């Protein structure tokens, strides 16, 4: 009996004009999302390589490693980032590392190319989130009350069909009729990846598969919800209206409102405020340093005037250098500690704000899907934290490289001055290929999957709740 209902539902949906039109549109959109994602990735890679080369070109004419005291690094594009963009275009893509200060990430794609920010990109997440959810409603809003309006529901129950089997067959049939055909454009899209020269790692394939599973679960949420609402209402026009209002709230309103609520409840100090505070400290330090510098030099000259033999001069010079170095190290450390403390405080408040916003937003399946899919593609807020950490780690390895090449730490003005003024200057150009290369790598697969698990579980829970709702509402449904 179940099979019969399932076949009937499948036949009914697949044979309808509605299916032909929506399937056509969805297929075009999915393939377009894959195609434009691949193209964006290729453009992103070209830009990345050009930017990297341009950054290195600055040092091509240098003969002294002392000049290579900072390096511009760039966020390495990843294929999944182009397919499911998340915050990757809003996040800064570049940073200067100098081995001393924490790198600050800036210049997001949207800030540099605001033309793309006007309408945003068409990625897979958008297609699933907005278009497919709307079409899922369109397929199932009259699943029960539509049959009642047409009189086919009464006709079906003239036979001895258990209601449970009927609703199960209806939901399964609708889901299969929607999900299975969608797999065709998805597979074509996936096929485009190797055809257009995109090589995904095993981890990336697994992440993409999980994304598709999440997408289907998300479709399931709207499908079961539609059947549920259809079972609660007598007229299909009413159920469609209710569903459209729910869709507007779930897709467009709740996610945005949650962020706004969290933003109003928890205030995060801006980065500009922090940097001005740090600059103020730096200003204060400069005034203090000037006094200290004068004192050190005065002592040095006084000592020289008392004893001018070469050995004593060398001793005094060494003493002066040590004092200057100590002063500089202390000054930098104090500023770095102050800045780190402020940033840490900001980060903690911001983290609380983000948790609150996402917590509220999770009442919307769309937000849950968005969080799960961006986590899987590595374009969630974790991208910011991971990129920052990777940049910091690279910064310290760059400092080691600088020390290895020059024999002193970056930012030691005295040593730099001495190196610059040395009589025997190198005439050989430095080999820029020796400069360490920064490559961003996404977190490990286990970490990503662990992160995406709660949201995937919530999607399953939504499916379960709406399925149960549809089941119960149909059990009590007046078939007449």
């Amino acid at each position, binding site marked *: 009996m179940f099979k019969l209902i399932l076949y009937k539902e499948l036949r009914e949906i697949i044979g309808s*004009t*509605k299916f032909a039109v*929506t399937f056509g*549109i969805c297929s075009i*959109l999915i393939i377009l999302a894959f195609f*434009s994602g691949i193209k*964006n990735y290729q*453009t992103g890679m070209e830009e990345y390589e050009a*930017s990297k080369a*341009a*950054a290195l070109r*600055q040092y091509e004419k240098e003969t002294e490693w002392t000049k290579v005291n900072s390096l*511009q690094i*760039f966020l390495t594009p990843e294929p999944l980032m182009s397919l499911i963009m*998340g915050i990757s275009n*809003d*996040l*800064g893509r*570049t940073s200067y590392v100098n081995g001393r200060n924490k790198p600050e990430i*800036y*210049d*997001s794609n*949207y*800030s540099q190319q*605001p*033309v793309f920010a*006007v*309408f*945003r990109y*068409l990625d897979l997440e958008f297609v699933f989130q907005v*278009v497919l959810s*709307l079409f899922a409603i*369109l397929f199932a809003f009259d699943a029960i009350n539509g049959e009642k309006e047409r009189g086919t529901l009464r006709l079906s129950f003239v036979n001895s069909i258990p209601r449970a089997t009927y609703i199960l067959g209806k939901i399964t049939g609708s889901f299969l009729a929607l999900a299975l055909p969608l797999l065709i454009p998805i597979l074509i899209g996936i096929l485009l990846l190797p055809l257009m020269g995109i090589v995904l790692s095993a981890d990336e394939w697994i992440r993409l598969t999980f994304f598709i599973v999440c997408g289907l679960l998300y479709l399931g949420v709207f499908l079961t919800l539609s059947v549920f609402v259809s079972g609660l209402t007598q007229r299909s*026009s009413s159920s469609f*209206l*209710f569903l*459209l*209002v729910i869709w*507007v709230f779930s897709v*467009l*309103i709740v996610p*945005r*409102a*949650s*962020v706004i609520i969290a*933003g109003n409840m928890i205030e995060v100090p*801006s980065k*500009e*405020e922090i940097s*001005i505070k740090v600059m*103020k400290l730096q*200003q204060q330090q400069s005034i203090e340093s*000037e*006094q200290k*510098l*004068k004192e050190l030099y005065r002592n040095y*000259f006084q000592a020289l005037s008392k004893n001018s033999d070469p050995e004593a001069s060398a001793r005094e010079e060494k003493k002066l250098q040590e004092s200057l170095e100590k002063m500089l190290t202390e000054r930098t450390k104090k500023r770095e500690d102050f800045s780190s403390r402020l940033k840490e405080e900001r980060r903690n408040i*911001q983290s609380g704000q983000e948790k609150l916003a996402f917590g509220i*937003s999770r009442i919307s399946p769309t937000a849950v899907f968005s969080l799960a899919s*961006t986590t899987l593609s590595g374009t969630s807020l974790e991208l910011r934290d991971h990129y920052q950490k990777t940049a910091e780690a690279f910064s310290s390895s760059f400092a080691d490289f600088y020390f290895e090449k020059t024999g002193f730490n970056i930012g030691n003005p005295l040593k730099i001055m001495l190196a610059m003024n040395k009589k025997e200057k190198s005439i050989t150009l430095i080999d820029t290929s020796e400069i360490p290369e920064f490559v961003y790598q996404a977190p490990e697969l286990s970490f990503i999957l662990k992160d995406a698990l709660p949201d995937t579980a919530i999607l399953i829970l939504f499916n379960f709740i709406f399925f149960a709702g549809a089941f119960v509402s149909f059990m009590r449904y007046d078939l007449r």
Partner: protein
Amino acid sequence: MISTLIEKELKSILLSPKFIAVFSVCSILILLSIYIGIEDYRVSMAHYEVVTAQADQQMQEETSWQGVSPVINRYPDPMQIFVAGVQNDIGRQATIGSRGTIKLSRSHYSQNILFAFFRSMDLMFIVKIVLSLFAILFTYDAVNGERETGTLKLSFSNAVPRGSYIIAKLIGSWLGLVIPLVVPLLIGIALVLVYRIPMTALHWEKLGLLIGLSFLYFSFFICLGVLMSSLTRQSSAAFLYLLVIWVALVLIVPRSGVMMAGQFISVPTSAEISARLAQKTDEFSAQYAKKIDEFSAEDTRKIREIYSDKSLTKEEQKVKRDELSEQYRKNINEARDEYNRKIADYDKSLNEDWRNRKAVREKYGFSISRFSPASAFQLAAMDLAETNLKLKTSYEDQLRIYSDIFNKFRSGKEAETDTSFDIMDDKKPEKLDVSDVPKFKYVNADLGSVLQSTVLDMAIIAVFTILAVAGSFVAFTRYDVR
């Protein structure tokens, strides 16, 4: 006859349960969007005031004119309440350095990435997405729905001219849907007044135009609904087609246009531009350093001459030495100014070229996007609110002018001040008097130029609407009412 038909249409819309649900949702959304916009604006203003005060305070602590680099923050505009546009995506701070290179950095979204995750919800967004969808929902069965229920046949059993009937349908639907929206909009405007948002006459004019534009856009979807309803026999088919058209016009075409332009027209990256500037700066630096060396050598030679000239008394030697020092400082300042000017000029030309290439891409991207009235509406709304792409370039242009003024002022001040560093001098440096430092004020475009930039998009929506009205008229005159 028309008035009776309009009245009938109005009644059927206003008394339907659909209207109550949709009207309530739209009202809540419109009010919510305006309220959120007001809150965002207040937060932006508070942020602006804090950051500006801190920057001013920092400047007041300076002891040397060389260290004075004003930090300019982008001033929030009340129109962002209604149309956020790209104002959250572009930088909101720039530092006026001695080199005159200007770059707005630190966008709201890049600094507060959480807000970028789901983006903002402004009035423009509600009108563009939600109201257009609801306009379809009300009109998809305007004609074929009446045929299905049999009322169309009934109506035409009387001597009703088809032309009058379809015009009455359009006017009735328009009045039934647009007039109720005026209520939440007026409440929203009242909120702006209650929260004392500093709206100038120009802002009110722009808001009036924005509301007019929104109604025009909304009218297009009403007419499109009636058109599709007159073209199809079944209301379910009309709705399906309308939904597909809506998805294409509102969600797909705008994005595709810009993405296509992005693929076809390549623009150098910001890093490439920075690297070119850095390379040129190195070149100018070397020239500057060479000049400084020459001045120093010349200065040393002349000092030696003064002290070796036995005919001069000690006082005369001192006078000559002072004159020489003054000349040396003047030369150094001139060389530095020239160095800074060269960098600023190069930066300007580099940016101009970059901007032109970007403009070409924008032009093509937006031209393709304008096949959709939704894009035309968004672009016109952003132009009206001045939260469009010009915001960045216009700010940076005005900052460049300010940078020239400021740097001249600073050079003058530096020339007046003794900047020599004497190790033996134990005097504590004094704070500067920065009260007369020129202030930056961003000048908005006037209504004339704002209108000029929106007129094309307004015309596009008007043409689309006229076509939909004409289409409805033609389709209905041929419609089989049975």
